[in-house]
């Protein structure tokens, strides 16, 4: 009895400590990778979180999530060019743009499931890519992209890389905390039930459409947020931010970390970025490696790295208990 109690306390401590753990983990990574790369990693992790809320929790695989990232990135740049150079206002504008695109496209996209959902996202991403690259090339700089300049704030100087790092890390923790609260709320439980069996959720009298729409909007908003943050980091936008062929990156990150887990998203983001940043310089056939890794994940390691760790931990726990 006593042992069970201590374990309960232990587990709850783990639950409260997750935000500091993530912060400390990135601070440990920081000297290993350098500040630019670590900032990059954190921003990608936010994107994976935004993607995973849709894929891992609601069970809808989007093959065009770059569209929402690109919406944030381009809004950020164009806002700073034409309206105001205040970076915080620009980020706010990107978040609003991300939410808006979710509100507009949601009713069309959310009604579909499975392959249709994946492909209709891809189709919209293709349209967005075309709009940026060709139709509005005068405003977006076309293939060359355009640079974004931000004014210096008195309390937050984004010219300093350390400030950017701190701000981005704070954003990640904020996103993580919000999503943790969101997924453990009744709303989040309902979304997980939609993944398991939507018909039954409908039988229980819930209007699943609204729930799916709201989740979709949250996902697009977080993705746009991460797009805006990467502009803050790079100061430059190119069509590669909205390139449909890059959609697989975030899918791979979500899968390898373990879909349906917030920790898994962050681990997946870090693992993917490590592979693409370091392995690519050692392995010339990098796309082929990614392909084989994806096959291994799909056929052998479906729960991802985080699921694997949790599984090992549970097994050990059982052995210890006899």
């Amino acid at each position, binding site marked *: 009895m006593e042992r069970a109690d201590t374990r309960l306390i232990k587990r709850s401590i783990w639950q409260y400590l997750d935000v500091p753990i993530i912060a400390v983990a990135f601070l440990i990574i920081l000297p290993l990778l350098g500040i630019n790369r670590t900032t990059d990693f954190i921003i990608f992790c936010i994107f994976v979180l935004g993607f995973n809320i849709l894929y891992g929790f609601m069970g809808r695989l989007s093959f065009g999530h770059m569209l929402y990232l690109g919406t944030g990135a381009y809004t950020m740049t164009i806002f700073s060019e034409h309206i105001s150079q205040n970076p915080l206002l620009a980020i706010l504008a990107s978040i609003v743009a991300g939410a808006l695109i979710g509100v507009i496209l949601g009713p069309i996209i959310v009604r579909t499931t499975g392959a249709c959902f994946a492909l209709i996202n891809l189709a919209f991403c293709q349209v967005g890519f075309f709009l940026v690259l060709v139709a509005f090339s005068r405003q977006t700089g076309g293939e060359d992209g355009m640079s974004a300049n931000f004014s210096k704030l008195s309390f937050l100087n984004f010219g300093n890389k350390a400030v950017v790092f701190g701000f981005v890390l704070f954003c990640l923790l904020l996103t993580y905390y919000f999503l943790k609260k969101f997924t453990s709320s009744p709303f989040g439980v309902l979304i997980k039930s939609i993944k398991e069996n939507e018909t039954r959720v409908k039988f229980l009298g819930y209007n699943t459409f609204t729930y799916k729409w709201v989740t979709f909007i949250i996902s697009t908003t977080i993705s746009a947020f991460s797009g805006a943050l990467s502009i803050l980091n790079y100061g430059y936008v190119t069509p590669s931010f909205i390139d449909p062929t890059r959609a697989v990156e975030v899918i791979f990150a979500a899968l390898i970390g373990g879909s349906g887990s917030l920790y898994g998203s962050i681990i997946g983001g870090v693992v993917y970025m490590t592979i693409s940043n370091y392995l690519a310089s050692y392995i010339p056939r990098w*796309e082929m490696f990614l392909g084989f890794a994806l096959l291994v994940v799909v056929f052998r390691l479906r729960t991802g790295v985080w699921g694997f760790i949790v599984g090992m931990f549970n097994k050990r726990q059982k052995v210890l208990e006899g």
Partner: protein
Amino acid sequence: MINTIAYGLTIGAILYIISIGLSLTFGTMRIVNFAHGFVYTIGAYLLISSLPFVRNNFFLGALIAVVAVIPISYVVERFVIRKLYGVSIDYAIIATYAVALIGVDLTKWIWGASPIPLSDPIGMDISIFSVTLPMYRVLIIALSLVIFGALTVFFKKTIIGKIVIASLEDKDAVKSLGINVDKYFSIVFIIGSCLAALGGVLYAPITSVHPYMGMMVLLISFAVVLVGGLGNIKGTFVSAFVLGMVMAITGRFWGPAAETMVFVVMGIVLIFKPVEV
């Protein structure tokens, strides 16, 4: 104007040849096959490689390319697709996408990344209604009609076709009759892959051949399949030609928008006709 229509018909014919395999794979196995684009690309590359051996005879080269795709598609089916039956559709998408990634890298490894141009294999023109058209395009349109007829006969008259049609309706019922459905599915998969390779071969002289040519065509043929109805053989035929016309007419007024317009049409169709997958 007639030129635009002829161009639209050509694109429609090629789109039909490519999409029918995709549509059948989806209808029978419930798998969205991203590796289809890879087969299409490899078909065009095999044609280029085989041309020197057959003294630049385009038709022999095309035949070799299509036949050579059979073992490749069998390997893909045996080691990837067959393991995906009954698995969640997301994993199928990701796994076949992985195959496409490997395939693209393989073509880059073997043939290099730079585009290879190919000239019109016939080079003769034919005049219809006082408009001169390249003979090659007319042949493509005719070929697509022949394939449509052949497939219709195949699905109506042969026992394999009948089994496939029955499994499109109700797979479990066919299984309970003691028929090994999976065997017929792999036949369908290989036929579809051969047709995709044929599409690549036919399209190669119109554009240039490069490792990523499959991706864009794949997206467009997905649009064709979704608009025409998944696993619907006649629907795919009609929607391929309609979307081919859309591409040609848009391309006439504003070149770069041609492919995007297909997705706009697809979006509109899906709004009014949601596909339950």
